[in-house]
């Protein structure tokens, strides 16, 4: 058993940094006002850089977590999400929230949770990481203590989260019962054999796990917390939820299904495909009716979940690309979505408004912001030049490879529907009359973060090869044993 504690270094950095933030907040009042957010971002960045030490490595810690490119990819990914979340929060927190130290500490803790969801190679670790992530988000969601909507969002998120994690746990217990192990590879091994004696329990466990993870990633019909939590949470927290909770959920979802449940793929494929179809239909259709930007993005993210679920439905023993495609789209979605949220945060910082109608005339008052928001929304809609087009294309194609043409058709159709409600936002920005014609002051730091995200959107959109290679290198590790060797022949 490998007990090389240094493998956990990036998380130690994060945890230590979190502790430091709390202390700094406590003892160093002046700094905390302006610089705490950036300090936290530096911590996330430091952990990201630390995690790069294990690039192209393949090892594990006590068979609990593994450190390979999959882990590294998500460590970097979540670390960067943390960086952007902290930077984007800085002004918001300073102006509107109490206890900034704890706030940033919690953000860093979510990064740990997310990273370990990706890194876990057995159920218990995965579960605890998931709870770490969720708990932090519950707190963050209700962080605006005197805002009823924040309270309400937090309450719903928390109670439903507890409920669903109970379901998830029950499912895990059943799986554990029939496989007698919590190791993904062990489960895989058992399931490769004859399952006829215990398949009822097995499938019930599977269903419950799908439900639990479905809740985490907001798949219909387990999605209902999403709009309320998104709307209630303080804006930067919404951004964080939309990015890290979803990405973490999918990192685990994908790994679990690719590593552990793959032998049953023919049984669960259609169910996930059905969930996926329902998710993208409901998410995108209801999004049409929204008039709050956070709620709109919530429903749009539900729609995106539908697309991502396609990637899991398209998994198969001889198709590693679905996994890569899923992660690629996940990355594209998160980058675009974060960009959109950063825009919304900047606007909220100026005006304290988050209704879509409030965006009237933004193009006059802040052209760059309007442009950036349009780009991010178009990227989410899957328009060319931007990340969303390429990533969706590859994801859908991967699904079609597995004979899911009907599902891909629904996906294409719903992403067409999504264009409508994104265009409505664009319409308000470019066609609405601004309340007053004055320009907004330029928030340089946020703009810089936004610019970096937009560059990401364009890079992925115009030259996805580097990201795709990275993704492929990482997903090569989530396939167990012989299959992995056979399926990722194209990889390095």
């Amino acid at each position, binding site marked *: *058993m490998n*007990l090389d504690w240094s493998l*956990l270094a990036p998380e130690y950095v994060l*945890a230590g940094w979190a502790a430091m933030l*709390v202390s700094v907040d406590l003892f160093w009042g002046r700094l905390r006002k302006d610089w705490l957010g950036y300090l936290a971002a530096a911590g996330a960045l430091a952990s990201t850089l630390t995690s790069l030490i294990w690039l192209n490595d393949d090892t594990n*810690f*006590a*068979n*609990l*977590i593994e450190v390979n490119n999959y882990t590294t990819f998500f460590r970097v990914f979540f670390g960067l999400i943390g960086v952007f979340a902290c930077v984007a929060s800085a002004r918001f927190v300073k102006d509107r929230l*109490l*206890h900034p130290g*704890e706030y940033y*500490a*919690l953000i860093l*803790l979510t990064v*740990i*949770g997310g990273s*370990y969801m990706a890194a876990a190679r057995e159920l*218990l*670790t995965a579960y*605890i*990481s998931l*709870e*770490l992530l969720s*708990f*932090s988000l*519950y*707190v963050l969601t*209700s*962080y605006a*203590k*005197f805002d009823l909507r924040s309270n309400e969002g*937090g309450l719903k998120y928390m109670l439903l989260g507890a409920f669903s994690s109970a379901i998830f746990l029950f499912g895990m217990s*059943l799986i554990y*019962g*029939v496989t*007698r192990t919590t190791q993904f590879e062990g489960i895989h091994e058992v399931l490769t054999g004859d399952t006829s*004696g*215990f398949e*009822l*329990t097995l*499938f*019930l466990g599977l269903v419950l796990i799908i439900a639990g993870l479905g809740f985490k990633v907001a798949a219909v019909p387990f999605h209902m917390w999403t709009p309320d939590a998104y709307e209630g949470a303080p804006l930067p927290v919404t951004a964080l939820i939309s990015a890290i909770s979803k990405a973490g959920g999918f990192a685990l979802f994908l790994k679990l299904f690719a590593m552990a449940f793959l032998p049953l793929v023919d049984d669960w494929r259609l169910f996930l495909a059905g969930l996926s179809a329902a998710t993208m239909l409901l998410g995108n259709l209801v999004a049409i009716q929204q008039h709050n930007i956070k709620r709109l993005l919530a429903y749009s993210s539900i729609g995106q979940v539908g697309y991502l679920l396609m990637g899991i439905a398209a998994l198969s023993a001889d198709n590693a690309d679905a996994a890569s495609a899923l992660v690629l789209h996940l990355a594209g979605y998160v980058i675009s979505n974060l960009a959109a949220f950063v825009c919304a945060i900047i606007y909220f910082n100026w005006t304290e408004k988050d209704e879509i109608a409030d965006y009237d005339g933004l193009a006059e008052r802040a052209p760059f912001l309007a442009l950036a928001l349009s780009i991010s929304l178009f990227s989410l809609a899957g328009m060319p030049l931007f990340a969303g087009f390429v990533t969706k294309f590859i994801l859908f194609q991967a699904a079609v490879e597995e004979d899911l043409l009907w599902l891909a058709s629904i996906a294409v159709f719903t992403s067409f529907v999504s264009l409508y409600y994104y265009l409505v936002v664009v319409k308000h920005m470019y066609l609405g009359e601004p309340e007053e014609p004055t320009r907004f002051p330029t928030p340089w730091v946020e703009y810089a973060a936004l610019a970096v995200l937009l560059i990401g959107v364009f890079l992925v959109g115009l030259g996805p090869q580097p990201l795709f290679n990275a993704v492929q290198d990482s997903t090569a590790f989530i396939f167990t044993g012989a299959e992995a060797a056979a399926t990722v022949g194209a990889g390095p």
Partner: protein
Amino acid sequence: MTYEEGIFYVVAGMTVIGALGVVVARNVVHSALFLILALVAVAGLFLLLSAEFLAIVQVLIYGGAVTILILFAMMLTRVRDVPQALDGPQRPFAAMAAAAFLSVTILAVVGTDWEALGATEKINVIPIEALGDVLFRNWAVPFELASLVLIVALIGAIVLARGEEGE
């Protein structure tokens, strides 16, 4: 029916009664008391399963910490003061859903050949030392993560529940 089974049925009966009480009692405090009953009975089940350590943990954490916390919360939110319906309009659906779920679960559980999976023997003693060793060595990461979870809960509880100036 062995005596073991006899004990099981008694303890199980208490568990179910306690659980039922939690979800149907017309008074919040009664619910809380039923919860204690259920928790303690579950601890008994743990004993039956020869998981003594777990039983102790159960009593300490649940019987002690959790129930007290809940009672505190009840007092703080003064739910007992206001006489009102404790059940929502959704109750019939809830019952149906729970029943459906129960039948599906029981179908699955009963329909599985546990004996074939090796559920014939059961050990009688779980060595706590070995358990501790495994917990702190083999399961170090979850343990550390759990500590973080607790910290988060702590921070959260403090940040959220604490009264602020002007409140």
